[in-house]
């Protein structure tokens, strides 16, 4: 292990390479571009390939091919490019190609403000492509977590054979911190589950009944897997029967649900006796935690829940953190996307919590507010939180 002074873009690159990154395809966009630059220098030295495609649509589709051919595959982008990738994300979900998309969130919609922070892509990551499917998304809150969750994102991608979105933001992307880079032996690296049958017995979309994930044959190994974006049966042949379609897309959703315990992650702070529970992700959670500590210093029973897996959400840990809270406050640089997620979870778990009021501290700002500015925003709403 060794410690380096890296920003989150570089930390993600290091984590991805530690996980065995083979192919990076991308199109430059602020604030993700320096990850591309870093990998252009570093990845070829470690035996991988870097390719600049003509745009983000080509990037994501090239990655699907690279993934099916056996390479750990990744791209990085930001809002406008992420929007362009949506069709390809659906393609990856349908053909069950494990790959990683890093979305460095910036202010939007559209081209918004290129160099400034946003947190508005939470729902887009999960629901941006059309149709019935599922995927995994993580939101780290430090350069160290960016490194750790780059590795975990690839592990998740191969565990459930879906695209995985690693969501950072413009502030994290350009903030250097100490990052401990681990040696190969210190890391858990999950690879594909290879076929155990002979090529003539192999069905590329026949799931393992336990985890609903089909064993994955790579191109060139003699199994001749078909990548079919249309509705398909276990062989990969185009079929439109109700039952075949339903079984396929239900499995695409359920394979994430049945493996949820291996995918979820979150952190709770001061929740044991918390009356006011704050919830935030990414760099916002850092400045919010500083405010929570200030409030604790003033004798206010404040706590914080920080989801790291956004999809699937760690609802059990959230409900445990919220058990004693009478007020829950989501704090985010958008119109209240975590707020919408938590309302549903609280309703589903209304017997396990004590009827808390949930407040939406939505701050669609292109800059990260300081603890004082968050406090000022709370006071301006006139809420009686303590």
């Amino acid at each position, binding site marked *: 292990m060794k410690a380096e*002074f890296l920003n989150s873009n570089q930390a993600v690159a290091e984590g991805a390479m530690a996980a065995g990154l083979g192919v990076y395809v991308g199109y430059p966009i*602020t604030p993700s571009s320096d990850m591309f630059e870093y990998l252009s220098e570093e990845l070829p030295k470690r035996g991988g390939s870097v390719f600049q495609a003509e745009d983000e649509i080509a990037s994501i589709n090239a990655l699907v091919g690279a993934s099916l051919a056996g390479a750990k595959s990744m791209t990085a982008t930001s809002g406008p490019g992420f929007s362009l990738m949506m069709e390809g994300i659906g393609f990856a979900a349908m053909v069950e190609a494990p790959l990683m998309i890093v979305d460095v969130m910036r202010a939007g919609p559209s081209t918004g403000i290129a*160099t400034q922070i946003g947190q508005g892509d939470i729902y887009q990551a999960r629901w941006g492509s059309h149709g019935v499917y599922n995927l995994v998304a993580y939101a780290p809150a430090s350069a160290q977590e960016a490194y750790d969750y780059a590795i975990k994102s690839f592990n998740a991608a191969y565990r459930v054979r879906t695209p995985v979105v690693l969501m950072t933001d413009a*502030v994290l992307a350009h903030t250097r911190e100490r990052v401990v880079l681990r040696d190969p032996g210190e890391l858990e690296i999950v690879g594909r589950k290879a076929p155990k049958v002979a090529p003539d017995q192999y069905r590329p979309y026949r799931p393992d009944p336990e985890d609903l994930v089909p064993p994955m044959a790579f191109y060139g190994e003699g199994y001749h897997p078909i990548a079919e974006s249309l509705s398909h049966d276990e062989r990969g042949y185009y079929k439109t029967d109700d039952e075949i379609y339903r079984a396929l897309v239900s499995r695409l959703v359920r394979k994430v649900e049945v493996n949820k315990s291996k995918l979820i992650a979150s952190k709770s702070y001061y929740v044991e006796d918390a009356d006011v529970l704050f919830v935030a992700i990414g*760099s916002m959670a850092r400045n919010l*935690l*500083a405010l929570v500590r200030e409030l604790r210093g003033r004798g206010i029973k404040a706590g914080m829940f920080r989801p790291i897996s956004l999809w699937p959400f760690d609802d059990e840990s959230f409900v445990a953190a919220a058990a004693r809270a009478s007020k829950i406050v989501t704090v985010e640089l958008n119109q209240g996307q975590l707020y919408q997620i938590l309302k549903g979870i609280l309703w589903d778990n209304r017997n396990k919590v004590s009827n808390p009021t949930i407040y939406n501290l939505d701050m669609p700002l292109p800059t990260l507010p300081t603890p004082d500015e968050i406090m000022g925003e709370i006071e301006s709403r006139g809420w009686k939180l303590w």
Partner: protein
Amino acid sequence: MSSGSKHEIVIAGRGGQGILLAGYILGKALVDEGYYVVNSEEYSAETRGGDSKAELIVAKDEEPDLMTVQRADIAAFMYTDQMSKYYKLVGKSATLVLDSTFIKEAPKDAGKVFMAPFTDVAEKQVGNIRAANMVMLGYFAAKTGLVGLDPLINAMKSVTNPNWVEVNAKALKAGYELV
């Protein structure tokens, strides 16, 4: 810097003045000296002339929560426009380091103020106007006592292009020795 102390630092100027590199080198030198450092950067879409700001949150004993500066106790400004724009981040009685080539007057409520013509010194004494950021950084280190000249030179060597090491070292030294 005494053990257990924390600092919030802002360095700002125009795009092209080398603000972000100065922040990176200062951060790297402090990390090498055993501090926790959170070094964020903000810049506008223009390559030259826009706003450019580096922030550092420095602590000895524990990793800081803060991502961004709330009340800087030390600030360096290399241009008037960005001093006006970011002075709101500077706390009362902070230490200011200013490039007097461009900034003729310090804010009235500042604490300690240290001014020197970094850009002029870079151009006339070091022989390269682009090293003004390193002159500032050397002077900054000497006046604040945060870090010594050698750790700065070592950090600079580890992050800058080899072609620039000699001129940067000369500029850091020139700034450190400015009175």
